[in-house]
């Protein structure tokens, strides 16, 4: 009885282990030579790939402590619901919202009989206290609406409304240039995304949502973010300033709300804060992201790990 139970247990264990690790190769090497016929056709990986060296274990470890959250909680700002009267209506919103926003005139102290020389510091502190950011609780839905607006289309509509004095015209010319360039980058973007989509359709024709993201798809996203990331290189120990962000995306690939910073503890110095801001800026600037719609479940929440060490040759 005992023996049979033990044998049974051992066999079960072996089977489980095999399930987990896969079958070891017991065969002779000769047989392996057989499948030479296989035609390898790697086409659709993006032209430029810059996959970082794999860091095997680390990642799983890191992820565990962070339970999944569907959406990044807004930075602890409890009074949020109050000032946001109507969450849905998009366009007309800005105007009324601006009204409460202007900060109360920053203490219009007349500064009586001051020294002849400037003494900016003291007032500076006061001015700083002006509660500008607070009255404006980051209008979440608006961000999403403003962003996607294809830059190109909006411009021409606006122009006619403007008065045409000479200065404006040259300014507009200037913008044209800029637009063109931005259009160009947009085009390359779409090209890239198309290639990404191609991969999807060919490799997972059935739109199998359980399939993980392919290397090309991940790479395309990585490139899109990297293109917009301006690294604060001048900071002391710039190479050590890593930043981790969790972003939530809607099905169009637009960033929902603000990226959430994943870090323990406060910023130890200004440089850490500035590195974080540079990463947030990159993420917000480069949306909407081109991702395979079929795999939305896989990318609705993404953790981005900004790590400039490689750039500094480390």
């Amino acid at each position, binding site marked *: 009885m005992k023996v049979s139970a033990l044998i049974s247990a051992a066999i079960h264990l072996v089977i489980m282990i095999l399930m987990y690790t896969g079958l070891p190769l017991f065969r002779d090497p000769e047989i392996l030579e057989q499948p030479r016929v296989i035609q390898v056709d790697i086409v659709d990986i993006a032209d430029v790939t810059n996959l970082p060296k794999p860091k095997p274990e680390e990642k799983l470890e890191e992820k565990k402590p962070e339970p999944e959250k569907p959406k990044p909680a807004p930075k602890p700002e409890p009074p949020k619901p109050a000032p946001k009267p109507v969450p849905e209506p998009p366009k007309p919103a800005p105007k009324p919202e601006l009204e409460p926003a202007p900060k109360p005139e920053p203490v219009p102290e007349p500064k009586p009989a001051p020294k002849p020389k400037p003494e900016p510091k003291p007032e500076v502190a006061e001015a700083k206290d002006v509660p500008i*950011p607070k009255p404006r609780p980051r209008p979440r839905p608006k961000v999403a609406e403003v962003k996607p607006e294809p830059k190109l289309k909006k411009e021409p509509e606006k122009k006619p409304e403007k008065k045409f004095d000479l200065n404006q015209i040259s300014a507009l010319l200037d913008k044209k240039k*800029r637009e063109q360039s931005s259009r160009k980058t947009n085009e390359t973007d779409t090209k890239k995304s198309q290639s990404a989509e191609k991969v999807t359709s060919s490799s997972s024709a059935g739109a199998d949502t359980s399939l993980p993201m392919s290397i090309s798809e991940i790479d395309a996203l990585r490139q899109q973010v990297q293109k917009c990331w301006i690294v604060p290189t001048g900071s002391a120990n710039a190479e050590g300033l890593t930043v981790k962000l969790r972003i939530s995306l809607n099905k169009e690939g637009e960033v929902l709300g603000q990226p959430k910073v994943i870090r323990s503890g406060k910023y130890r110095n200004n440089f850490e804060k500035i590195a974080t801001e540079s990463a947030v800026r990159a993420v917000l600037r480069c949306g909407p992201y081109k991702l395979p719609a079929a795999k939305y479940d896989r990318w609705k*929440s*993404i953790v981005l790990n900004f790590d400039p060490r490689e750039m500094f040759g480390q």
Partner: protein
Amino acid sequence: MMAVGLRVAAGLKQVALLMVAIFLITGVARAELVIDITQGNIKPLPIAISDFAGKSEATAIVGQKIADVVRADLERSGLFKIIDKRAFLQQISDIQTIPVFSNWRKINAQALTNGIVTALPDGRIEVQFRLWDVFSEQYLTGHKLSTQPTNWRRLGHKVADYIYERLTGESGYFDTRVVYVSESGPASRRVKRLAIMDQDGARHQFLTDGSNLVLTPRFSPSQQVITYLSYFNNRPRVYLLDIDTGQQEVLGEFPGMTFAPRFSPSGNQVVMSMAENGNSDIYLMDLRTRAVKRLTSHPGIDTGPSFSPDGKQITFESDRGGRQQLYIMNVDGSNQKRISFGRGNYGTPVWSPRGDLIAFTKLTGGKFSIGVMRTDGSQERILTEGFHNEGPSWAPNGRVLVFFRQIPGKNKNEQDKVRLWSIDLTGYNEREIITPRDGSDPAWSPLIPDGR
């Protein structure tokens, strides 16, 4: 027997459960995509600086000029790209309204500054400005400053300092000045005068008339006093000069020639070299008691002393090892040790205001370069190399260096050009500081205190 079997079975069940749990956990973990972003861009941050508004025509003009100073400062730092104001879709005239960020995103601005200039009843002008993050739509910083109308350039520099600090994490350096030796005339009869100017080359003025040869001017921490070497009456001596009053004073009665002076971080001491019978050593003088202390006594030539920012150590150059190399010692002269071991000669060491680096001039293979190394001599890095680069001096934030560069004339009839240049600690962004004539021996001032 039975019981044992059951227990084993129960144990197995636990094992199985554990394995299932492991599968689940790894499964869950796999659900969230983690992407490493390892490559970014090293390029200037695009920033829009709108003309500062003004209620009257006069203040509006000042507002424009101040904005121009801010733009020029930030652009020169190499860390910002200034967006042409003609591209702006919105003119912000009211400091109290929040900008329409989408207008600024369209022109690719990542940061935005707007401001307003007001004339105060007492005749002074006041500037208020705000800095915004265009993409995250956040207010970053804002200040209110006031001064005499003639001082408007400094308002611009101060605003630029605040913006620089908020966006780079380092303190700014725009509200500073540079003192240097202005040179003119043929090589045989070179006229050298002390001159001072804003860090951007504006408000240039001469401090001495050129009748005596002057060298190596250095600021005191208070900015009010300069110490330098003058050949007055053909006796090279270290002098003090009060910038505001023009008053000069010899520093101590030494038997030999004194040179290469520099203030301590507290401003209460001056460290310098004295040469006697062909030997130079380093001396420290207390400005309050005028007491002098000898720090080195070595047959070699010890010179070029410079304090660490904490005032506890001094770096200097010495040829005691056979070649000119860099050394450090404690402020009392103890614990002298060599830190540079590279090929060639090293000179003019200057301790960074951040404390972590020492900048120097290096002569090797017939070329003069400007470089930096850690204070233990490790991680030497050359920033710029050429025919003749010399005499680095740190901006107060330890991020930028100013030095002078001699460019040989193209033929025998053309004189060499000697000009002031600045360079970023990364080795990028070399810029000439435009001076009316040739210039050498620059020294960057500390940040100007707010009250002045």
